[in-house]
């Protein structure tokens, strides 16, 4: 696990000059209690994921034994491969990555950057009221517009395609427009002016000056947009209606039906846990390597996972 350099110092050891022994003891007790509580909470919080990962390695007898088996022995590592091929998860992974997550992430970044530049770096009349409308749309729940959009996209013949996700991503996302605009505004205007004197147009300034300086904000956009599309369930549930087009989230749900309908000798649970682990794994790995970006994204704008 990579560690973040703590930019903010820890709250002080408030008991700096203990005048009594009892105060030292109290401080020690508080610290011990804090550690014990944190370790207990940590174990509780990680347990479901631990159970998911270890259940992936069990066979049916180990799954159904009472008392429960905490550490799989023997561990069946081929469960991952078996579960993956039991349904065509390669196809689902392809759909998730290449038809949904990557194009939507890329286009959202591109369109949101252009719009954010217009809101941050060019001054024009009407900019502020329109920006407020943009912020207000963050509050509009997707569920409220989903029925009319479904009817419209159905008329376009977009059912069972990923166009209902890709096309709207070409028009920017209010959260990311807001985030990028705040970031762009912190870039000194002198840099843009210098580029203008050198003959750069606005797109040139966006591309050559603003973009290279905005890497942290861009990372937040890429990360969260990818996360949202990788995790999305309701969207594909509405628009995707053949198995061949399903993303991972729907393919897992298909396996759930299997787990609930088949007997205790079908390897249903180990396989269900194995695919769940494999689908969760990229997100956990991305978090471990880009922890700082995640934490900054949340702390600055309250983006939800």
């Amino acid at each position, binding site marked *: 696990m990579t560690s973040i350099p703590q930019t903010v110092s820890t709250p002080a050891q408030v008991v700096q000059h203990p005048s009594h022994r009892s105060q030292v003891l109290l401080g020690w007790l508080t610290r011990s209690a804090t550690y014990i509580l*944190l370790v207990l909470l940590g174990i509780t919080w990680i347990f479901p994921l631990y159970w998911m990962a270890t259940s992936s390695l069990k066979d049916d007898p180990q799954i159904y034994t*009472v008392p429960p088996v905490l550490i799989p022995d023997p561990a069946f590592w081929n469960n991952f491969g078996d579960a993956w091929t039991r349904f065509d998860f390669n196809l689902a992974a392809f759909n998730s990555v290449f038809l949904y997550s990557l194009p939507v992430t890329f286009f959202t970044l591109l369109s949101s950057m252009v719009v954010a530049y217009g*809101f941050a770096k060019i001054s024009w009349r*009407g900019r502020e009221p329109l920006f407020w409308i943009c912020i207000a749309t963050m509050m509009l729940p997707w569920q409220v517009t989903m*029925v*009319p959009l479904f009817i419209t996209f159905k008329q376009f013949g977009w059912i069972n395609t990923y166009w209902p996700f890709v096309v709207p991503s070409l028009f920017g996302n209010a959260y990311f427009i807001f985030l990028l605009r705040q970031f762009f505004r912190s870039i000194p205007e002198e840099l843009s002016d210098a580029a203008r004197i050198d003959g750069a147009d606005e797109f040139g300034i966006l591309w050559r000056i603003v973009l290279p300086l905005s890497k942290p904000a861009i990372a937040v956009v890429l990360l969260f947009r990818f996360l949202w599309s990788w995790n999305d369930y309701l969207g594909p549930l509405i628009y995707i209606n053949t198995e061949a087009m399903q993303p991972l989230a729907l393919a897992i749900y298909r396996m759930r039906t299997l787990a609930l309908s088949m007997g205790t000798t079908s390897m249903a649970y180990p396989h269900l846990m194995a695919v769940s682990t494999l689908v969760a794994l990229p997100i956990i790995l991305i978090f471990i390597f880009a922890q700082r970006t995640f934490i900054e994204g949340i702390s600055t704008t309250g983006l939800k996972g």
Partner: protein
Amino acid sequence: MTAITPRVRGMTKTEKRNQLLGMLFISPWLLGFLLFALFPLVASLYYSMTNYDFIRQPQFIGVTNYTRLFTVDPDFWTVMYNTLYYVGFGVPLGIAVAFLIANLLNSNIQGRTFFRSVIYIPSIVPAVCTAMVWLFILNVQYGVINGVLKTLGVPTIPFLSSPELAKPSLILIYVWAQGTAVVIFLAALQDVPRSLYDAALVDGANAWARFWNVTVPMCTPVLLFNFIMGIISAFQDFTLPFVLTGGGPMKSTEFYVVSLYRNAFVQFSIGKASAMAWILFLIILLFSVLLFRSSARWIYYGGEK
């Protein structure tokens, strides 16, 4: 309002150029706003006053869908009760637990980054994956919790299969996935000026008094922000109840958006679903207004704006 209408006359050449460029840059968002937010919102209002099933032409029936929902609909109030139960208990509990954990993390301890990661990761793992593992953990026959209870000779708990326990079980999982709030709270706690704690210490305040008289007042804005955002997002929860319990047993977890989805895409009662969407929109609008109103009173912008 005069600011919106561009008074092109009286502008310098550069101003004119900027006006055009600015509007050009933000035009993707404006177009997207009209196509994917405003139009569907208005269309939704129209559909909510019709009888429509995707096949025959919509018939205008006025506010009948709304009056039916409020008076004769067998499920609407059940769904509303379920949702209010989930939001009313889940959100305050989630806030309290998240704030407690953030305070523990903010004390003078080693391994803060590690503990924060452990608490945060469950909130970014795909909801379908966590739903699968909770389905397994809480299973009355094969689940690990009931496995332990069986070993101890204690009666098993039907977490998801009893109408009384299904909602509390989902609230439990909701609280478990509040890592985002923990990260936001931790960031806020680290911004509380050290001098305030020092002053309280000089005044002889103990840890409890410091918590209530320094930490809580300083964190009121962020507590309020998370509370209202929590209500807004909990109202829209879909994947977890849909995948875990499918609304059952006996409609005890049929939450608002689950019911909305079912009415629209399973029953094809587009009119009724749209009326529900508009009621949801108004509820969320109410909380958004509360959020903005309260932000003016509570939130300190730290100099900017």
